């Protein structure tokens, strides 16, 4: 039983990727298993935990709920694409380190995507807005406190023009 394969062309972290995939290959499996971008994690595979979040054309989406073929022609950014062009950590990533916004690191890529999406549209969020923005991303280590602190710190540093 060989499955039919479909051609896709997706921009992933600024690089055009062309592949042939089966219709049932999920976006997260394609990113992880075929592109070896293992920073994006699988947590629940039913769209609740948010660990698999990636940016699709600038919007956070659950890559476990999308098929790779649906990403054809679109632009994806994963956690591996959040760093600055010179490879240094972004302000957001660095703020997570500074404020201890993570422990085991498993939810962190999805949390960073959710936080980046928030800061892209609301550069000075209140703590309540931060909690609302990450409410679709589950974390079992931190109780969210230091994640909220990290995102608030990033917003503050960005406002000050930190590089």
């Amino acid at each position, binding site marked *: 039983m060989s499955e039919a394969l479909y051609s896709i062309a997706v921009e992933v972290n600024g690089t055009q990727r062309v592949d042939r995939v089966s219709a049932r290959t999920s976006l997260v499996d394609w990113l992880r298993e075929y592109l070896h971008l293992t920073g994006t994690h699988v947590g629940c595979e039913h769209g609740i935990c948010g660990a698999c979040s990636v940016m699709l054309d600038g919007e956070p989406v659950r890559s476990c709920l999308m098929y790779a073929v649906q990403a054809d022609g679109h632009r994806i950014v994963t*956690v591996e694409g959040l760093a600055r062009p010179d490879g240094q950590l972004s302000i957001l990533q*660095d703020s997570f380190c500074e404020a*201890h916004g993570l*422990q085991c690191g498993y939810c962190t890529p999805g949390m*960073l995507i959710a936080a980046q999406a928030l800061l892209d549209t609301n550069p000075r969020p209140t703590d309540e807005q*931060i909690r609302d923005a990450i409410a679709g*991303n589950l974390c*079992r280590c931190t109780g969210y*406190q230091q994640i*909220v602190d990290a995102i608030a710190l990033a917003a503050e540093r960005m406002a000050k023009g930190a590089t």
Partner: protein
Amino acid sequence: MSTSHVANPQRFRYIGAKRRTKEDPRFVSGRGRYAADIALPGLKHVALVASPHASARILSISTDAARAMPGVHYVLTGEALCAATDSLATGVDTPKLTRWPLARDHVRYAGEWVAAVVADSRALAEDAAELVEVEYEPLPHVTDPEQAIANGGPLVHPAHGSNVILHRNFVWGPVEDAFARAEHQLAFRAVWSRSATVPIETFAVVAQWNPATEILDVWASIQMPKYPDQTAKALRLPGNAVRVHYDVDVGGSYGVKRGLKHTVLVGYLAKRLDMPVRLIEDRLENMRGGDMHGPDRIFDMNVAFDRDGTIRALKIRAVDNVGAYAGRAPFQLGKPVSAICGPYRIGAIAYEPVSVLTNKTPQEAVRGFGQAPTNFALERTMDRVAQFLNIDRIALRQKNLIRKEEFPYTIPSGSTYDSGDYHTVLDQALAAIDYPALLRRRDAARQAGLLAGIGISTCLEPSGGNSAFEPLLNPKNETTTWMDSCLVRVDLSGAITGIMGTSSSGQGHETLVSTVVGEILERDPAQIRVIHADSLNALPSNSPVGSRMAIMLGGAAAGAARRIKDTLIAIAAHNLECAKEDLDYRDGNVSLKGVPEKILSWDQLVEIAHRKFHQMPPDIEPGLQAQFVWEVPTGGGLPTPDGRVQIYPCYAFETHIVYVEIDPETATPSIKQYVCGHDCGVMINPDIVHGMTYGGIAHGIGAALYEHFTYDDNGQLTSGTFMDYLIPSALEVPPIRIVDHCTPSPLTTFGQKGSGEAGYLGAPAAVANAVNDALAPLGVEVNTLPISHLAIWETLTAAGR
């Protein structure tokens, strides 16, 4: 946010200072390396066939259609696996209670694995798994532990002859006498329902067999003591044929990542097929068949007390539903023995732990190892007594808390608490939340027609991860050591590497070891690398369980670093021709006291150790490395015949003050204010301790209000997804304020205590007490967790609201 009332009382250079972790940069950049990220050439994938019945006889299994599918390499059933492997290890002495990764003849819970398919991809393996035909004859089942104990109920393991696998009656002190003399008695039932810590990463394991070297390499998301040994034993391999790679990042565990059955299955398949094989649980497999549920416990509490609030004695019966098989789960009734009276002066205690088999998913270790449920029952008891006597809950606790000057304090069950200042921590938490203002807020909310309540708990965190509950509950098990170790190397370049022998699941052990080694050697922790050895390279470790690593790994790292320092001083003394006592050690350089120009630098000393044997003192090995294996402080003893035992060395203390309002329309509780007063001695990295405490509180809020593995009448798990097993989000977990206090432990290297279970040990009790304070004006209460909004609704409805 957090505030520190007492800075670390000793002067440290790195310990207690704000410090980024060594681990975070790889995680924020997507460069972690989890078990599911291990890519081996030719990797094959496992899908599982699971039982749809809670109890059934397997009549036949047909695998022909699955085997015939292209891309499928193998289909394994229980019969073949059981013949080739030994039963998985169990904790208590139940030799007829056998357990294999795949069922043979009889399935005992819905979700139990029956067959495993190996294919070129996970998708193909799942396709093939659907073609495996299993014929079952359903049998009667039981999920209620009291029904399981009653005569005539179905036996989960007929060969065992009973559904009870552990039943003890401990009596410590003059319990009956105290009950006879006390002015009052009170009895009630408190129920802690099944939940777990449910990490976001499910369990994953990859195994590869090399027939030439005869080594099974294992990469797994594991947090488990004796994991390589138990894997090897079940696979009938010598211990040195299993190499567990501990440099795998584990995506959260909090106790539950104990995939022994997964590993034995995948290890067998990898060896049998001579192919690398991987199993990653999907979420339903994790929830239903991952064997990671936590305690499921009915407490019958009986307390004797006087009208002035003095608690004289306790009788505790704890019936725990361990599910269909038991590994270490029954021992979760043992850890609470080490803090059976909580932080209170209670002179006589009877404890009757009963561990019961049912047709539910097997229970495994969960954060706190049974202490959080016990603390919940104790704290409901305190509130019930206060209510009965119409005494303020805080005053009742203050009256019964062990006083600072009474430490070290030995409790009736034989454990000695090392140190503490409970009254001060409670006072600081009350001040931090402005308790009089909080009372006014609650009363104003009540005036406005809301249900509003304040909850308080004062709880202990036994720490230091000893396992003296093993010989206590299984006399054939004479384990009296739970050592941990560290190896420290200084290479020719002068760079320092610390080597630990277990994996980490978010606790920041690399940061811990580098900070401690840097502290002793006075070298910058940022430049110290810490690695996780594989199990064949590693010194003994008992893994990061039982809030033990700050104490045990921290102590071992300090011990190894001290040996390095001693060696450097000995080399300097030999070369400067003086006594060691005449030397100053500063920043790794060693000089003659009062003669600073007579100095040997770190680089010079390192070079002597590595290259210049002619300059080495006699009897010192060349190179520069040291290991330290540490026995748990206070460990080493067996229980007395009457069941008294020192289990844990250190006891941290936490108090929680919670304010809850309940929406009168929907009965939904929400937490409006939260303060935790915490004393875990010297904090090596305060941000890490705070982080784990916040996380523990979030787990505790989940256990108290939301999380529940529910079963229907057919024995089916009905909360197998995150749509019905409700994990608190950032909207349910409120902002939390932690107030630190520091009472050093006299038993540890720097005065530290363990803290990995902090928050979780006191939060459920405080949240439950807050909801009950809100319900108190109606004259109703709820003593069964989780107190879901539905449970509150039903209680209100029954109360005529």
